[in-house]
């Protein structure tokens, strides 16, 4: 059968979500952000909630998330997305509010905001991209940077004496009464991406049911700042990140 005979509208099984804009993403080739954006857009499309979803973008690489997912967006100050999301959800209880944050944003400068939003059990969804490094500012140490990992500000590798331990903030928020669903996923393979998509959907459903805060950590790559090819960065993540940040549901109730 000729390829031309297969490529027909009636045979279409997968195409770019209509909730994604046509803007070319500024992310580096192979960046996990693009996959997570797509999955979020697909869930919004499938749940038919494009008009009811309000996104809050962080400071960091995903600051421009608002260019790529066609919903209403607020661009937060560094670390403050959960505060914006809190007010938005309280003022519009019937909307879906998604805070999208990186590791520097959520686990360093915004620690107070994320802990307290989760502790109050705000009915919001938090998507937390953990690639163990500051991407946009050029590869400095993040709170989640692994021990011995080299970054621009840990040129000889992260040491406990100088920098303390990597922070497992996801396990931390899972202990808070306000969270209903806390999970750690990845998007480097089709199976893992599909699991992350299911997690995003579940989190949005939780927020509609007012069950509390849902947080999805996505263990991700930053191949540019890790100084690896996209494919090798995925391998490095499996080998080094997953043992310290194991995948799976941490809390689901």
């Amino acid at each position: 059968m000729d390829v031309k005979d297969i490529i027909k509208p009636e045979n279409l099984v997968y195409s770019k979500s209509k909730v994604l804009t046509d803007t070319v993403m500024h992310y580096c080739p192979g960046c996990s952000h693009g996959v997570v954006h797509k999955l979020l857009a697909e869930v919004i499309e499938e749940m038919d909630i494009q008009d009811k979803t309000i996104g809050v973008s962080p400071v960091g690489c995903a600051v421009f998330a608002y260019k790529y997912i066609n919903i209403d967006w607020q661009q937060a100050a560094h670390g403050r997305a959960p505060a914006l999301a809190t007010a938005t959800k309280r003022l519009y209880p019937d909307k879906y509010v998604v805070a999208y944050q990186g590791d520097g944003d959520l686990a360093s400068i915004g620690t107070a905001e994320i802990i307290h939003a989760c502790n109050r059990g705000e009915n919001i969804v938090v998507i937390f991209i953990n690639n163990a490094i500051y991407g946009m500012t050029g590869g400095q140490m993040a709170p989640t940077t692994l021990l011995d990992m080299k970054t621009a500000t840990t040129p000889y590798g992260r040491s406990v004496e100088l920098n303390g331990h990597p922070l497992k903030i996801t396990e931390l928020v899972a202990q808070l009464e306000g969270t209903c669903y806390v999970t750690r996923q990845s998007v480097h393979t089709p199976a893992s991406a599909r699991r992350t998509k299911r997690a995003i959907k579940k989190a949005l459903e939780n927020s509609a049911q007012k069950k509390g805060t849902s947080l999805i950590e996505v263990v991700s790559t930053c191949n540019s700042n890790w100084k690896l090819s996209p494919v090798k960065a995925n391998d490095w993540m499996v080998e080094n990140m997953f043992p310290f940040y194991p995948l799976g549901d941490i809390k689901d109730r």
Partner: protein
Amino acid sequence: MAEKLLKKGNEAIALAAIRYGADGYFGYPITPQSEVMETLMEEMPWETTGMVVLQAESETSSINMLYGGACCGKKVMTSSSSPGISLMCEGLSYMAGAELPCLVVNVIRGGPGLGTIQPAQGDYFQAVKGGGHGDYKVIVLAPASVQEMYDFVGLSFDLAFKYRTPVMILSDGAIGQMMEKVELREPIKRLTDQEIAEKYGDWATVGKQPHRDGNIISSLSLEASEMEEINLRLQAKYQKIKENEVRYETLQCEDAEYMLVAFGSSARICESTVEMAREKGIKLGLLRPITLFPFPEEGIQKMLPQLKGVMSVELNAGQMVEDVKLAVNGKVPVEFYGRMGGSIFSPGEVFEAFSEKFNL
């Protein structure tokens, strides 16, 4: 007949918020303004008007909750005192940059640092000259009575939405804590979500509407030329505010040869100083700026032909006096008298300083 109550300034702020149809209050306790949130929590407006009241984990979080709420096209406000306002300055800069309406009440205490809990006016520069980073202004209203604390809440929301800009009520511990009669105005209904979507749906995050792409509220632009455009737009807006929104009051200025300039609680004290001077046959008047930004430059300039001297009276080391000097532009002598750190001058002390500085 309108209801009249004996209330603290801080309580009046809270009652006004509910009656002027505020959608949300987000705050953090700090003396001397904690009664604002305490009163709101007692009143439970979520049961009546549907107003949201939330105690945040910090002032940083409060102002960012305001940011989120203002993005939604909702009437949102916070209140704090000096150190808390310092923490909020980042958020204020963001909100000014993103052109968002909100009300921030500063019940000033003595500084710098943790300072003291007594009243002061040491945050004039912070309020009027920026506080946060970048070229931005907020409209600053300075109440001098409990009634004005109440009334300026409504005025602030009107101005905030008219210009899509943060508005600050710059009060102090004296006005916040003192009790006076306050007349409650006719309540205004909160807008429904539907009304907000119709009124502000072209810019606010009310949920994407079918006829438009997603609204984006951001203060970011990596293109220098775009960022300059945004700045020019902001400056044009501030110019419009300067042209249209100056408010001030004069007392015994008709025949005045000397004039005190004072705002807020200082102005209340200076009213008595004017009386003292008049009793002694000195033609003294008082100009009370109600808006600190925009500053009543013309109001001062109009007086200059008849004046021999001006004295700025402030509970600080001399901040507004710089704006008075800019307005006077060397045409008559400008003096300053002030006390700091929570100490308050008496009308007599002001009169003494005035007589001494002008050799009267």
